């Protein structure tokens, strides 16, 4: 067990994978000489060379599609897209190719591709660099969507993605890169599709993922001081979704607050709410509450950005309201 940043944990997993399997390569904008826009791949070019730490032109559709083709051809490519916002330029390749080829070919093809990208707001990067669109990706069958929130998961989920036979998209919240935590590099690949209870509680469930986990835990601390025992369930994987874990926590606490940095309308939080209404409606002891981003392109100014994103006080208020203590 060592201390590591989220960024270093990904780098370690990358290095481990590159070391272990000569078919693995990392490609993306500025992953090589620059060291990665978020410094994740710093130092890897020197160790593994420009063939396997491959700088790409600014052609998201081109190089993500090339990643698909390379995976079809027998490589295990890891494609880094600088941020989720840029990934929209490659959405055709994601939705029309990566997600469809196995099915459209009647099971003949498989696309063992890993795509990593930064997501989320909070760094005053304004509306073209701050959005949380992982919920959109989770809409698409044929791909897997991971959102590691801890240092351990940042490492273990990358290994899991590389071991997977299907396209796996990893969303790394940009505020997490410098965060520190314990890392056991020998724990092995994470289980895709498994949510984890990060804190046990009995009065209300805070269900969240990715960059909002820390906020949910902070809210649970605050609620504890008010005598409210909040359970925090971290989804970890948006697709496939651990529906049973969601059912279990709602069955336990009977109250649900969903925290999702995506916009509320048509969001992933809406999916969870709908699932709960479909499957464990009779366990609910209060309406479902959602804390999401405001319906606005994320603004630049700090106070406005803070107001647009989910924050701890809003989570606390939402949870209290469900307990009739609003």
């Amino acid at each position: 067990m060592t201390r590591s940043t989220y960024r270093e944990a990904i780098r370690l997993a990358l290095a481990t994978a590159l070391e272990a399997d000569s078919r693995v390569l990392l490609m993306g904008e500025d992953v090589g000489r620059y060291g990665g826009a978020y410094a994740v791949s710093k130092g890897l070019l020197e160790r593994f060379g420009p063939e396997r730490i491959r700088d790409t032109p600014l052609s998201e559709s081109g190089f993500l599609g090339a990643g698909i083709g390379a995976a079809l051809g027998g490589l295990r490519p890891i494609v880094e897209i600088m941020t989720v916002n840029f990934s929209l330029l490659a959405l055709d390749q994601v939705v029309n190719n990566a997600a469809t080829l196995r099915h459209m070919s009647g099971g003949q093809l498989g696309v063992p591709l890993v795509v990593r990208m930064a997501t989320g707001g909070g760094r005053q990067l304004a509306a073209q660099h701050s959005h949380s669109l992982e919920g959109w990706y989770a809409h698409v069958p044929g791909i897997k969507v991971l959102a590691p929130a801890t240092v351990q998961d940042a490492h273990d989920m990358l290994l899991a993605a590389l071991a997977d036979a299907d396209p796996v998209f990893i969303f790394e919240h940009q505020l997490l890169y410098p965060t520190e935590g314990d890392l056991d590099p020998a724990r092995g690949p994470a289980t895709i599709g498994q949510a984890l209870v990060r804190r046990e509680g009995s009065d209300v469930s805070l269900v969240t993922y990715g960059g909002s986990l820390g906020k949910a835990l902070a809210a649970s601390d605050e609620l504890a001081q008010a005598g409210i025992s909040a359970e925090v369930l971290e989804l970890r994987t948006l697709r496939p979704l651990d529906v049973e874990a969601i059912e279990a926590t709602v069955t336990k606490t009977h109250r649900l607050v969903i925290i999702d940095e995506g916009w509320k309308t048509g969001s992933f939080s809406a999916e969870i709410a709908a699932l709960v209404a479909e499957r464990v409606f009779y366990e609910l002891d209060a309406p479902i509450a959602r804390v999401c981003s405001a319906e606005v392109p994320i603004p630049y100014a700090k106070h406005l950005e803070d107001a647009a994103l989910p924050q701890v006080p809003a989570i606390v208020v939402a949870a209290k309201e469900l307990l009739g203590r609003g």
Partner: protein
Amino acid sequence: MIATRARALALLEQMFLIRRLEEKCAEVYSAGKIRGFLHLYIGEEAVAVGAMAALDAADNVVATYREHGHALARGLTPTAVMAEMYGKATGCSRGRGGSMHLFSTPHRFFGGHAIVGGGLPVAVGLALADSMLGREGVTACFFGDGAVDEGEFHESLNLAALWRLPVLFVCENNLYAMGTALERHESVTDLCVKPRAYGIPAENVDGMDLFAVEAATAHAVSEVRRHRSPFFLEAKTYRFRAHSMYDAEAYRSREEVAEWAQKHDPIDLAVAELTRRGLIDGAEPAAIDLRVRAAVERACEEADAAPLEPVGDLLRDVLAPEVG
């Protein structure tokens, strides 16, 4: 150069097979046996047949939604193709793809892509894999003139050139992007200018001439193999049928279509050339045609009789089967 009589007759037979199978498609489509979009290749057969003749079994093929000809020329059986269009379990994509999405990994036939331009990045990636894994294969990527308008075309050419990847880009320029004529969708209609801007050698060829296409492709493939870098081949061709099954053809005149069909039918041209060379006698084309028609009939009967995928298997092949 097509060296032997046997080989020449085999290619002619492929062209006949494509022609007759697609005519049958139109017939059974009208009878409701085939549904969805159905893009016929009739008129363009020489491109697929000529180009495939220059490829090896280890090479990769990426095609478009007008790919029946490519699939058949690559060696997929008429039954596998027809059953796919019938939506049957025995189809080459087990009924999940249909006319636009024919796949066959044994033939290294990677589809069947119905987003214009979407197959090009995939072809680049296949070539990247061959390149990094030290394999000799070439990836032949077919697309139409409409794809040249797409950003993915330019991104892919740039990538292939930058990374020196063994991709053969084959542009089937049939003069129309669906219903928009070349001069109405391209600011510069000489398509070879574009790859050259990326440093990719480019040639064009008469796509109605089987032997010219075969020769040009053989040259292009040898250049790709020799330099392990991309090559661009433009085949000038013409489709005799509508964009998809039926359209009003308001974008071109009947006279234009009739003139192409009369003067440039690739099968007529190939028969004439083979006759001129003395590689074929007068009765042989009819015999080939008869044999091919029978094969198509048989394919239809087999497709008709084949089972449907059980609905219980609907969710199969979305993801890899769970292991262990």
